[in-house]
């Protein structure tokens, strides 16, 4: 019998507590050992095609509807690609305001990931009864902490609502700047949240550190491997989320490319299509598809930057760096969570800094121009990692080609590898134990993948596990 016919496949579907819908297959070899793991993404199909023939000015509004979880990130990347096509220098106030919007997105998204989606694992343990290992189980014991988390997320949502005019899919950022300036009332409303938000984030960081301690033994199995790291850094090499250039670093801390203008992203990365996922999987070009696997998002951003621009976050980053031990970069996916909490701290401090900027309430927020370049790229750091929007237009601004490079696609290879590592450690025979499922889910959640425009109810625990042989016969099936 040929080898492929003898493999068995375990399917875990859907991965709960991830935004949207996904499926996992674990492929076993003939000895029942884990051969491969795949995290399937069935979203995003056709969006790029759908935009072709439309106008560059509509794109922020259109693309911010790709995802209900981080619409503001698509909005900003799209508006920046538009700035690039208009070849325009946007007013300084507009940049400050766009930055505030992005931080609002970070706060709401990171708070969701930490408090709603991952906290049940942290606080109740991976082997806890699934009936209570969810938001409701968590509520029973940690009500106050969770309430603060919900408020923190609300703060992020408020920022977006205040700036974007109370819409989820806000078309407030446009090619050339933003649509409306910030009023005194809006400024005051955001500022009023800051002390509470900072206190909550500091508490979250303490909890995170105690979790890091508590799971010292488990953590080495959570996607612990060297990979490349990609993200934006500022001109001076410091932490960046809105502007700057691309930095690529390897898992030993060597900088492979630095401050490359986003316009040249295609020089660094190539995308390959796979038949098992709708996402195109990008890799670092000069290393090839296998070696070129890279990670983006909080872990990557904290690894690649020289420093963070706000004092408390910078102090925490130094503590984070110590986790690298002998190595130069922190290579363990579990520490995405820790990095995320540090970024929340940065975001709160940075909003404070921006609100204090003398130009934040400026009235000149939009520049206008016609098509000055036939191609444009906009990049920004979405909560889950670097996001690129690349548009080609005709001389009238009608889109001829659209390419979007999203964080979840960029992390796809690393997520597969993480699942494989966890399965290799926790899969026992042919049985898919509750503990294994929980760990795989938790491993995926390190990356906080965003998969569709719909948020699943937090804590819904529907799991479907199928054990298949290579010819498709179901050997075992388990639902919960």
């Amino acid at each position: 019998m040929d080898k492929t016919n003898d493999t068995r496949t375990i399917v875990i579907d859907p991965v709960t507590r991830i935004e949207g819908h996904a499926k996992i297959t674990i492929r076993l070899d003939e000895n029942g050992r884990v051969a491969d793991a795949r995290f399937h993404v069935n979203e995003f199909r056709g969006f790029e095609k759908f935009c072709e023939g439309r106008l560059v000015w509509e794109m922020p509004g259109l693309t911010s509807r790709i995802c209900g979880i981080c619409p503001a990130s698509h909005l900003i990347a799209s508006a920046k690609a538009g700035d690039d096509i208009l070849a325009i220098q946007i007013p300084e106030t507009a940049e400050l305001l766009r930055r505030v919007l992005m931080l609002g997105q970070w706060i709401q998204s990171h708070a969701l990931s930490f408090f709603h989606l991952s906290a049940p694992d942290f606080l109740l343990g991976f082997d806890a009864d699934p009936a209570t290992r969810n938001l409701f189980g968590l509520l029973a014991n940690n009500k106050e902490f969770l309430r603060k988390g919900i408020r923190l997320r609300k703060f992020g949502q408020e920022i977006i609502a205040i700036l974007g005019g109370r819409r989820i899919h806000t078309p407030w950022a446009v090619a050339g700047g933003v649509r409306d300036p910030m009023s005194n009332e809006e400024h005051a409303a955001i500022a009023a949240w800051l002390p509470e938000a900072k206190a909550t984030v500091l508490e979250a960081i303490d909890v995170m550190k105690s979790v890091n301690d508590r799971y010292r033994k488990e953590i080495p199995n959570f996607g612990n491997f060297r990979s490349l790291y990609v993200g934006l850094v500022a001109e001076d090499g410091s932490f960046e989320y809105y502007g700057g250039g691309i930095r690529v670093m390897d898992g030993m801390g060597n900088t492979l490319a630095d401050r490359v203008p986003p316009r040249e992203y295609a020089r660094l990365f190539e995308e390959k299509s796979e038949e098992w996922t709708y996402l195109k999987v990008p890799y670092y070009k000069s290393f090839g598809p296998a070696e070129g696997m890279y990670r983006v998002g909080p872990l990557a951003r904290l690894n690649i930057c020289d420093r963070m621009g706000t004092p408390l976050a910078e102090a925490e980053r130094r503590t984070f760096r110590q986790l690298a031990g002998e190595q130069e970069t922190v290579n363990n996916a579990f520490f995405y969570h820790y990095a995320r909490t540090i970024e929340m701290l940065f975001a709160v401090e940075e909003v404070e800094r921006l609100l204090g900027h003398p130009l934040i309430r400026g009235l000149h927020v939009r520049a206008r121009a016609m098509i000055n370049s036939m191609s444009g790229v906009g990049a920004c750091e979405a909560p889950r990692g670097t996001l690129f929007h690349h548009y080609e237009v005709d001389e009238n601004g009608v889109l001829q080609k659209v390419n979007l490079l999203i964080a979840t696609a960029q992390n796809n290879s690393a997520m597969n590898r993480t699942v494989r590592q966890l399965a290799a450690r926790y899969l026992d025979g042919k049985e898919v134990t509750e503990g294994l499922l929980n760990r795989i889910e938790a491993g995926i959640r390190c990356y906080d993948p965003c998969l569709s425009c719909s948020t699943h109810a937090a804590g819904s625990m529907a799991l479907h596990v199928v054990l298949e042989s290579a010819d498709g016969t179901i050997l075992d099936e388990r639902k919960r």
Partner: protein
Amino acid sequence: MAVITFSINGEPVSGRQDESILEIARQHNIRIPTLCHLDGLSDVGACRLCLVEVEGTAKLFPACSTFPSENMVVRTDTDRLRRYRRTIVELLASEGNHQCAVCVVNNHCELQNLAYQVGLEHVRVQYLFPRKDLDASHRDYIIDRNRCVLCTRCVRVCHEVEGAHVWDIANRGINCEIIADMHQPWGTSDSCTSCGKCVLVCPVGALIEKGATVAEMEKHRAFLPYIMTARTKHEWIARAIEED
């Protein structure tokens, strides 16, 4: 001009012989939905939303372009009319590509307002999803034929008010489309003066300003009766003489 008396919805009304049923109804605060009609332009009876019933005949008449006769009995709000109006709006919605949420005139759109007015909750007919062009060749404006409802307001305002006659309708039936000059890109039109009147009168997001983003455009149409009154009554001449 002779004054005639007739009834609308049982209420006795009167108006001049050269006033349409629509105009007289409005003077008596009776609302009839319209789309292709615009104060200041001639009427063509294209959209059929203003249809009314007249006693003694099974035929329906467009109020905007029908003139009353003595003792006519007109009804504007029967079950049958409501049903027809709803269907007309459904057909309009289904024969274009209307993604309101990302449309430049979202929340400021006459087609949307009509949908609310006729109580449209969902479209029962199949959407056609036609492939239509978007022409962005003009320096300042764009025509997106995906959202055109063929009301011909643009055609009329350009011909009757601006005097340029850039726009026309090509083809027949479902293939009708608004074209510029000799069916060429708008930006290459020699007759277009770039006055922008067509953009302002367009009831939907088909004619828009370049650079406008989602839900950003509001159209101001009050200029039209103003210009027309000035023109027909020669008010600017009177003022010029006064100022002399």
